[in-house]
């Protein structure tokens, strides 16, 4: 009962044990602030993670779409189709690869 009265009359922070009580109060305050900061940090990371996941999905979709177009364009049949009118023909003679070896 007395310590409740003590807190209410601010004796807790001005009496003979005030120094010790202040340090406890400060420690509790710092700990609370630290906890709040950590919670915020956690949430921030969760948000960042969600953003990165979204970005990852976007990049993957972009990669697939672009690669799809590129792969289609790279098909010999498509290249031939596009260049046939310009008198291009599919080579049948093997290309020569010269392998140079030191003596």
């Amino acid at each position, binding site marked *: *009962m007395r310590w409740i009265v003590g807190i209410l009359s601010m004796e807790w922070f001005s009496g003979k044990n005030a120094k010790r009580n202040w340090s406890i109060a400060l420690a509790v305050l710092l700990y609370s602030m630290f906890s709040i900061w950590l919670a915020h940090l956690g949430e921030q990371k969760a948000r960042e993670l969600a953003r990165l996941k979204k970005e990852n999905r976007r990049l993957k979709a972009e990669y697939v779409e672009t690669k799809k177009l590129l*792969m*289609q364009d*790279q098909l010999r049949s498509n290249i031939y189709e596009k260049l046939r009118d310009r008198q291009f023909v*599919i080579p049948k003679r093997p290309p*020569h690869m*010269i*392998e*140079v070896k030191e003596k």
Partner: protein
Amino acid sequence: MKKNAARHIDQWNLLLHALLVLWGAAIVVKLIYVQFIDGNHYRQLAQRYIRTVKIKAGRGNIFTHDDKLLAVSVTKYDIYFDAVAPVDKVFYGEIDALARSLARYTSKPASEWKRKLTEARKKGRRYVAIAKGLTLQDYEKFKKFPVFKHGQFKGGFITEIRTMREYPFGGMLRRTIGVASNGRKYGLEGAYDKILTGTDGERLMQKIGGGTWKPVNNFNEKEPVPGKDLVSTIDMRFQDIAYHALLTQLMNYRADHGTVVIMETATGKIRAMVNLGRTSGGHYFEKINYAVAERYEPGSIFKAFTFLTLLEDGYIKPGDKIHLESSRWKYLDRIISDAHTFHNIDYTMEEAFAHSSNIATVQLTDKYYARHPKKYVQGLEQLGIDKKTGIRLTGEAEPVFPHPGDKTWKGYKLGMMSFGYGVELTPLQILTAYNSIANGGKRLRPLLAESVKEGLKTVETFKPEVTDASVADPENLAIIRRFMRKVVTGGTARNVNSPYVEIAGKTGTTQTEYWTGNTQYIASFAGFFPYEKPLYSMIVVIHKPDKSIGYYGNTVAGTVFREIAEQIMGFTPDTIQMALNEK
């Protein structure tokens, strides 16, 4: 006075203490009650508010040998509209603009969209389908449309995300890639499902107001592990060439279906596998993996195995001659005939093979094996053609391979078998045996998967698997290879001879459905190239071409073989070694 005050405080202390103890005891009692007596009830209640949700692991991609994507999991977006959510000002102020935007990206006109959405609002519909399977790029555009741009609560824009398997090359290789979903498993997807499937993750979710669920923690209880990527042996350059060559020929000959398989001689790696079947509408697409699942009577292609067995048993030598009186010959109760007419002709073994003489093949087999047909069959078994190849794909057909002593075995079976009737093999089984001839005797299990990747790192490599180190004497194999070259330079497939690449092979023109009275044909050509240093073996099989256009193995299948071989060699470098002069 002081004593009274102290006693007064003690009484208060005691009371406070007693209350605290009672409170503590009450908590303990309640805890026991909650935990053990009402436990089940509360656990059931909790399940309604907390649940573990599976987080689906991403499925691995399938690549070709040349780094092309064959199968990939992509995120797709379905869009719905809550027609009640937007306020009148937003809905009626922007509906015309929204309808116009939707019309640009869909097949419906703007007037139709306006009518549909207005009607939905009047009827109080909260889940109107707008578009399904959108790519991220399209989804981002839809999100900025009038009305939708106000979000879910003010604009009624509802998004549902799902992961879909996409095949960038559409129908090409569809059967070889296969599927692994809804209880169906076939193709590469089915065979390598364990590698491609990752491990699902878990996340605890808590129900909050408004029927929505939010994660209990900021982290997943169990992180999903994505599946690994599979690199197949397929080379898209080979596949593209083979696909178009076969498709063109099937269309030209109005054939029912066909298949092409290309194998690397030294490793057994399959570089292309095309299977095309005709639909009722006259189009062709990958209906069935004919190469693996469809067995047929190979006809003259089988003669390579018969002649090799005769050589192995020492009954014939390349220079030996055989005299044939006529192009029709009575064998037991059957008439055997050759494709071209002749009277009194002497063939060397090479010529008999090159001209694909049925009569010579049956006469030789009958002469040396009629008394002990088991020896002939055992000789063929040495080549491994009586067994499945063991390719890691579901649905490989078991060969039909008659044995003397079987209930169905009859006298004429030996002769018929010698030129490919009464025996049934799949194109892949024939190709595997031809590949052994091409590579000097190594029987290799056909390989469709090359490696497993985790990101950019290769974590597993599938090595070529030799199932028989030597199926026949290398000298006899060289003789058969020479015979096959003769088929192209001076035999039944002279039209397959190419000025660019030395092709060796054997034609096959098999009668089928002869029991119906309307005989159809199966045209085939199997072989390898280049002749001197074989790099690839290949088989082309075309079923039921239009007889009025053509049906012979050399014209229908052989030309496809030549076209593909020439194009492949067109980008395969011819290496010339030069010594560097140090001076």
